[in-house]
């Protein structure tokens, strides 16, 4: 924008038009800023409200009208963690989610490599079967799995949850890693094979290190999905193996609800996920659409 149009206030048609265009652009920028601000505020507000409520005293949390400025307290966090035993449930969540993630990387990366590199009959069907698993409603598996777990005496153990979480974490690792392996030049494989390396060695020593970025992203997705589950854990755990989302819902049985503690528990559950999601934010869409949209 030139400064000459600012100083010339004469009503020359040309400068008038320039000023109108400038004003229009300024208005557009203003609307753009307001639009972005609305997007930002509406996304963040409920989260902000949860975090601030967790830091308010019970009186402040239940105040009418709501208080915006208050003296923060961490009492709800210590109460939730140690008196309501959220610490144990967070530990359970960590054990279950990281085991499921580790297993799905262990099983999923070779499968993804095979889907990316080898040609065989039925490959498309196999690929689609992996995809279909993302769509299956948890309740469909929870019903029979409850009976299996009861029969095998696995109710309220970590193992049963780890196995169930594989049903969605394994497919997500396969989709993302297949994509990643496809981007590694096949010439590298061929050169290594000519040097006498076995297929396994080619995978382990050449492809796996090169695919690390994709593997890390898929591991984060697998972890987030496993961490976030409520239904399976609600049905299959009782006391020892309850995960943190189940612990968060267990406050709901009382009459006077300890809102500060509930929101403190919620914050403890969500905060690590927000950090992880921000770490993979560039590939969130890819993970959530199973690689169909990049």
């Amino acid at each position, binding site marked *: 924008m030139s400064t000459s149009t600012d100083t010339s206030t004469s009503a020359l048609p040309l400068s008038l038009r320039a000023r109108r265009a400038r004003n229009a652009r300024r208005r557009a920028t203003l609307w753009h*800023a307001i639009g972005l601000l609305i997007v930002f505020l509406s996304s963040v507000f409920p989260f902000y409200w949860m975090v601030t409520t967790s830091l308010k005293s019970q009186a402040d949390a239940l105040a009418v009208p709501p208080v915006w400025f208050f003296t923060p307290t961490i009492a709800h966090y210590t109460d939730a963690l140690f008196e309501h035993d959220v610490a144990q449930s967070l530990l359970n969540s960590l054990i279950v989610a990281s085991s499921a993630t580790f297993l799905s990387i262990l099983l999923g990366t070779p499968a993804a490599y095979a*889907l990316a590199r080898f040609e065989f*009959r039925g490959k498309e069907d*196999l690929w689609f079967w992996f995809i279909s698993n993302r769509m*299956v*409603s948890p*309740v*469909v598996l929870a019903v029979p799995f409850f009976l299996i777990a009861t029969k095998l005496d696995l109710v309220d153990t970590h193992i049963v949850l780890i196995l169930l979480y594989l049903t969605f974490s394994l497919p997500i690792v396969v989709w993302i890693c297949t994509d990643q392996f496809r981007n590694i030049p096949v010439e590298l494989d061929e050169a290594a094979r000519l040097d006498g390396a076995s297929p396994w060695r080619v995978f382990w020593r050449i492809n796996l290190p090169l695919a690390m970025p994709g593997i890390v992203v898929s591991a984060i997705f697998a972890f987030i999905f496993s961490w976030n589950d409520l239904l399976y854990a609600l049905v299959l755990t009782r006391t020892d193996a309850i995960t943190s*989302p189940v612990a968060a819902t267990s406050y709901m049985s009382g009459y006077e609800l300890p809102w500060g503690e509930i929101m403190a528990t919620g914050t403890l559950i969500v905060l690590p996920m927000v950090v992880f999601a921000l770490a993979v934010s560039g590939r969130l869409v890819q993970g959530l659409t199973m690689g169909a949209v990049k």
Partner: protein
Amino acid sequence: MLKSTVPPATGAARAPRRARFRFMPRSPAFWFLFPAVAALAIIGIYPLLLALYNSFHRYKLADLAGGTPFVGLDNYTATLADPSFWGALGRTVLFLCMTLPIEIALGLFAALMLHRTALPWLRVAARVGLVIPMATTYAVVGLIGRLIFNRQFGVVNYLLSFFGIPPLDWLADPTLAVISVMIMDIWQWTPFCALILLAGLAMVPKEAEEAARLETPKWSKILWHLQRPYLLPGLTAILILRSADMLKMFDAVFTMTRGGPGTATEFISIYIQRVAFRLFDQGMASAQAILLLILTIMLSRLYIRFVYREAV
């Protein structure tokens, strides 16, 4: 669904197949795939077969004295004649029809805002903000809903009071309860729509877009004539994935309303969960789960057909 993809593991069946299939136990592909396929078959397919088996039997956990006799299609006919099953399915579809258009419209708004190149700092802030709802654990979304829609101290009623609206008992009124669940769903999933549509907008060639901007200042014209075709694949993905998600919707609704008041927010997954684990009728719940699975398979076929056409 598996068809011919899993080769037989037994030695006896190996030899005759070797001649017909290029995908053989000897090939490295088999050993790379076997662990994952076997694991998913055991945890993903075996339970479904068990559910199918149970759906043909009387299987009430509270009343196992009479055993679990074979009852043929009784559970299916009972389910299909059950108004509460259709009610739950109908509520789910209605919820989808009301929520999804709003999510897409708001998502498109956010995507268009983020696509414009000006105001880099505010754009980064909005982009980061969008990640938060997507990352929030579904169960916690429901808890936040209970907090902000509380009749006495909820912040929603407080904000509405500025418009002269008296305090509403959101979670006790059937219609308002559905609306509050809708609002939380819209909060959580609009960013998903926004990011998918934003990815579509980014596919539009830069030169074409600049030329269009010189041609017309109207964003609606650019959207319709230039950007629309690039948005369609993402839109298809949103439609199918969100439909599948609504069939799965459980966590947030469970923590927010438990399906209530009455059955106002009892969507299909909540209903099946209640039949299985509150009424302890495993046979009936299995039949319903199988019916839900059939719907899901149809959706995933659609997804593969329309979204993955060129992916493999």
